[in-house]
């Protein structure tokens, strides 16, 4: 048994798939009643991490505890403590919403009247009560996700794991699911671990965030702490010319550095005020500015600051195509 204030303890976790390093020596803890967000692009290792926490994969090295139980040696105990909503649906489409809940309850040792009442209460919570006896096959994507959330709560888990809870959902449904998550935290004191590649989702919901990229945690803290890494505004320039000497000329900049080929990030207190001056300096230094933008820092800028890539750009990599292909193949 480990410390009880921390519901999840991850120590030096490594996971290799053959010669691919999916998770590269990460450590973090999640305290009770926290909403902890793992933020990062597809392929960053978020899903692998939570599959290990959920006992579905074995770590290559390192240790993971949930409620004090080791996920490898005491996997059964861990399974009792967690509820999980997978990224891809895991419902039985041939059965009704009620039966999906009922079978889940039975698998977790619930019975009879108690089980029935619990099912109805939770279906009510996710506003699916009137569809209880409808087959899941006829449900929309949002309804399925809501049903999965209800199902994962049935056995009163101590830790709720949500893997990309709003992926592929329309804005209204997203907002609705966000509300459920906030309510779970507020009304039920639930500890929630969620993964997402939407920075707004992490910012909106998470009390603490770990940013993951290429299997590593590259930053961790509250959203405010992370954004404080880039106080003020961030100006992004794509330019041609001598970047180093240009940077030296910017006396008003708190920081000026190259984050990618031809691309620099300039941290300033007030971007609109200093931009004209910046253009003048560029002109007098023979630097050609090809693109300019400035932003109030969000988590996206934090990610850009740390990796030189936009979180948004990385979303468009291959996994999306693969998912579309699989869908075509299996539906």
């Amino acid at each position, binding site marked *: 048994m480990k410390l009880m204030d921390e519901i999840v303890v991850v120590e030096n976790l490594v996971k290799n*798939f053959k010669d691919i390093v999916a998770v590269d020596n990460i450590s973090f803890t999640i305290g009770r009643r926290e909403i902890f967000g793992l933020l990062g692009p597809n392929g960053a290792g978020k899903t692998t991490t939570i*599959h290990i926490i*959920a*006992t*579905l*994969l*074995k770590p290559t090295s390192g240790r993971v505890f949930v409620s004090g139980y080791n996920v490898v040696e005491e996997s*059964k*105990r861990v*399974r*009792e403590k*967690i509820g*999980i909503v*997978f990224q*891809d*649906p*895991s*419902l*039985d*489409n*041939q*059965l009704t919403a009620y*039966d999906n809940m*009922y*079978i*889940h309850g*039975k*698998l*977790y*040792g619930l*019975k009879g009247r108690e089980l029935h009442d619990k099912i109805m209460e939770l279906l009510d919570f996710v506003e699916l009560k009137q569809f209880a006896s409808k*087959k899941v096959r006829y449900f929309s994507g949002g309804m399925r996700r809501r049903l999965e959330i209800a199902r994962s709560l049935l056995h009163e888990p101590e830790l709720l794991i949500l893997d990309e809870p709003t992926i592929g959902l329309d804005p209204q449904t997203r907002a609705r699911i966000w509300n459920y998550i906030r309510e779970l935290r507020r009304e039920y004191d639930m500890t929630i671990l969620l993964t997402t590649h939407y920075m707004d989702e992490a910012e909106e919901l998470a009390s603490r965030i770990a940013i993951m990229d290429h299997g590593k945690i590259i930053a961790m803290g509250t959203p405010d702490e992370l954004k404080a890494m880039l106080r003020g505004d961030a100006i992004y320039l794509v330019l041609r010319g001598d970047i180093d000497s240009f940077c030296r000329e910017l006396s008003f900049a708190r920081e000026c550095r190259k984050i990618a080929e031809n691309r620099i990030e300039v941290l300033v207190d007030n971007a609109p005020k200093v931009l004209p001056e910046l253009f003048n300096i560029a002109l007098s230094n023979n630097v050609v500015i090809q693109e300019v933008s400035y932003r109030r820092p969000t988590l996206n800028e934090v990610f850009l600051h740390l990796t030189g890539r936009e979180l948004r750009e990385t979303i468009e990599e291959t996994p999306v195509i693969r998912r579309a292909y699989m869908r075509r193949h*299996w539906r």
Partner: protein
Amino acid sequence: MDDRDLNAVASMIYRQLKRWISSRSRIVSVIVQPLLWIILLGLGFGAIFSAQNIDTSTWPSFVKINPELLKNIVSKYFTTLFGGVDYITYLITGMASMTAFMGSFISGISVIWDKQFGFLKETLVAPASRRSIIFGRMLGDAIINTIHSTAIILLSLLVSGSINIWGIPAALAYIFIMSLGFTGLGIALSLRFSSMEGFQMIVNLLTMPLMFMSGVFYPLKTMPDWMKTIALFNPLTYAVHGSRYWLTGTDTGLSFMNPLLDLAILSIFTTIFTIIAMILFDRASLED
């Protein structure tokens, strides 16, 4: 096995039954297919294996045989061959086992579907023991297959007059045990094959010969020796022999076979494949 494991077994039986009830097309296809076999083979070959159709009028005049005597002899030959019953009775009693046999492999397909559609993950992350989950699933499927066989047996009452109604429960017991074993085999295979195509190919390769070398369509006694040898290692052979014995009182097997031995062999086969399926499912992870 504790209380929760029993609960898990019950929940998986419930799930398989619910799925079965909700998929009418499957019920129809599982019943219709053997029905087609019975009609097409039973009526087609049934007429050949019957002395009534011997046409003596075209025989040359020097053949001096009493046509009635000939029909008697031929008729005797066929009924002995088929254990004392006509071909359609012979076929339909074998078909009862075959229906459950074919259905057993559908469980394997459903495991692959669950892999593709994610429901498998839901069962892998549950605290109930994996063994009880897969065992519940097997039991549920074996029950469904036995229900299909029951339908075929009830149908046989309409087609044949020589079925012993009191033997039906015993025959169903043989069929149930056999189906449980093949369900285990199907699940074991499905856990090894992640693609539907690969699994289907193996199953087709397996079911066709097992079906024909089991005594469903023709007796073991007249098979070539090599075929007999294979049939001896085919669990379906013993289910067909045993259930046919209870349904018609006929002994259509090889000399050493008897209903008790059938039961013993089926039980051993089923125990082995139940354990294999349990072990493989216990080891199943998201990595394969």
